[in-house]
């Protein structure tokens, strides 16, 4: 397989007070090397759960992985030894940029402590083979080399005066700057894949523009793949090479960005794009509500709200159909033509 990351048939359930929620229903997602893939969907669609499942950080008590595989560089992360995954993959080959940078830093330590701590365990120069004893020593030469790498990366993410910045406390940075720090921390272990969970949602639009450009430039320069979740289609438009749309735990359509925005085929995608506010002020919503994941609709989960739904939609989930190279859709009635027709 040429894919760096290949998720196949992933099923995840969450045990809740109200019953068992089928949060992911056989998801298939691929990320190629050097590609930025956007995972787009509204709240409750399961994109954050998918991101967590790939990282292996689902809430232990509530979440149950019921099936499927997550293949990273050929190996199924779900079936590997967790200790090995923790040492080699998580935080190293696959890193993470969270949504809210303000809660990602401990407020009582200077930024330097946390970044160098990260480097101690996850630096590309760190020895392989397990986390070792907690009080593992940090060899001086490696520390110096790592610190140089940190300063260089901080310059790359445009943090002014990196050496001084390291000594500051997290609250002395603005939201945009903290997100830059998170990007730096995601890049330092020299990962193959970064999973970014709505990293610009809490930022102002001008800062968002800066961050998106920065992120895209950096990952393209270093050949790093990104799996970028967002509920904002505009953001996906700015940064993604390919876009995958999710609804209620099922992926509906996957296409290269240009085709996705110009010629979406799935009725849900079309409705979603149509509801983005146009300059004329027309308001188009989607009637109905997102279904509960406890006892969701059978077959294609969008069928209760879909104009094209027929009996088979209500019965069986559609299989993947390739409309054009790279453009897959899971629908019995994909629509042709631009939106609005």
């Amino acid at each position, binding site marked *: 397989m040429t894919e760096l990351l290949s998720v196949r048939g992933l099923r995840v359930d969450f045990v809740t007070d109200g019953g068992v929620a089928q949060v992911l229903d056989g998801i298939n997602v691929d990320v190629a090397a050097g590609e930025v893939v956007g995972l787009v969907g509204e709240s409750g669609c399961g994109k954050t759960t998918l991101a967590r499942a790939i990282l292996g950080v689902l809430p232990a008590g509530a979440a149950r992985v019921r099936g499927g595989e997550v293949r990273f560089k050929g190996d199924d992360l779900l079936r590997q030894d967790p200790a090995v995954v923790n040492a080699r993959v998580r935080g190293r080959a696959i890193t993470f940029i969270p949504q809210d940078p303000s809660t990602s830093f401990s407020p009582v330590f200077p930024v330097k402590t946390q970044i160098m701590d990260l480097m101690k365990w996850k630096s590309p120069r760190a020895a392989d083979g397990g986390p070792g004893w907690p009080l593992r020593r940090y060899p001086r030469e490696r520390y110096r080399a790592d610190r140089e790498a940190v300063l260089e990366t901080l310059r790359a993410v445009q943090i002014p005066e990196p050496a001084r910045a390291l000594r500051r406390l997290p609250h002395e940075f603005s939201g945009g700057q903290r997100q830059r720090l998170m990007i730096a921390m995601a890049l330092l272990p020299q990962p193959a894949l970064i999973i970014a969970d709505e990293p610009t949602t809490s930022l102002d639009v001008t*800062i968002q523009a800066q961050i998106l450009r920065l992120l895209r430039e950096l990952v393209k320069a270093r050949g790093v793949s990104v799996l970028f979740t967002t509920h904002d289609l505009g953001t996906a*438009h700015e940064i993604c090479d390919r876009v995958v749309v999710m609804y209620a735990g099922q992926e509906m359509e996957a296409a290269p960005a240009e085709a996705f925005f110009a010629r979406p085929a799935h009725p849900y995608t079309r409705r979603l794009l149509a509801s983005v506010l146009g300059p004329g002020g027309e308001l188009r919503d989607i009637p109905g509500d997102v279904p509960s994941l406890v006892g969701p609709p059978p077959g294609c989960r969008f069928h209760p709200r879909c104009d094209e739904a027929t009996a088979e939609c209500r019965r069986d989930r559609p299989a993947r159909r390739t409309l054009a190279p790279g453009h897959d859709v899971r629908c019995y009635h994909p629509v042709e033509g631009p939106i609005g027709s």
Partner: protein
Amino acid sequence: MNANAPGAPLLEIVDLARHFPVRDAFGRRTGWIRAVDGVSLAVDAGETVGLVGESGCGKSTLGKTVMGIHAPTAGDIRFAGREIGRLPPRERRAIARHLQYVYQDPGASLDPRWKVLHLLHEPLKIHTRLSRGEREQQVRAILAAVGLPDAHLDLYPHELSGGQQRRVGLARILTLRPRMVILDEPTSGLDVSVQASVLKLFRGLQETFALTYVFISHDLAVVRAMCARIAVMYLGKLVEVGDTAAVFEEPRHPYTRSLLAAVPRIGGRRVTLDFALEGEPPNPRDVPSGCRFRTRCPLVQDVCAAEEPPLRDVDGRRVACHFA
């Protein structure tokens, strides 16, 4: 409520300022946050005026100060011709009948221990002397107007979905039939399809109840869809005020231009490729001298640091820039 002269604006803010003291660990004042620092704006009856800006610009503080949640540090707030910024508490409470405020999460504005029925009766109990039967009638009418069934009267807020809570929150305010409603980030955090239905609801209510809206939002697309006039704020001051269509078509202030340039355009070129604005807004405690935007402005000259540009009329619009 005194009727104001026809043609006079419903709301007139004149040089409004709201400053917050900054205190050190001992409680001594070390400085001020000039959240709103001299804003003048007029809103006519029936209009929908949008107030946009990024975080820290003061738009929420402005809304809350007009509403009376904060007391103004300086300046006047005139509602229907009457100054309301410095009224004694009891009289200020009476104004609430005509001027209301919707929170970003209207569901949070509901007391979790009260049934919807009581929540909706409360505004009427506070402000009117209607009998229970008369209140019942009003409440049912409002419920219908926001699209909720009578059955919901018997429920507690946590037994409703988020969208239904929002409608109850709105209904509560509308029972008073206010003339003007300040909406504070009403669509923040909402999914795009839900946003569309919420905005439809607002539009419908505006028609039904002849409301005037002040629409505070950081989302330019939403403001463009809903507001006929737009006012852009930066660091406590207005930088551009004008007709929405005109401002979007041809923004005059450099900040407005950057703001618009940052909004992604689906189906078009990637905006981030050309996006030029660097840096972040300065700390509101240390407001730059002269023009506040000068630290990031592509057009900056010496005069910008020396003199603060006034908000002046340029082609039917108001712009605060030396070079507009």
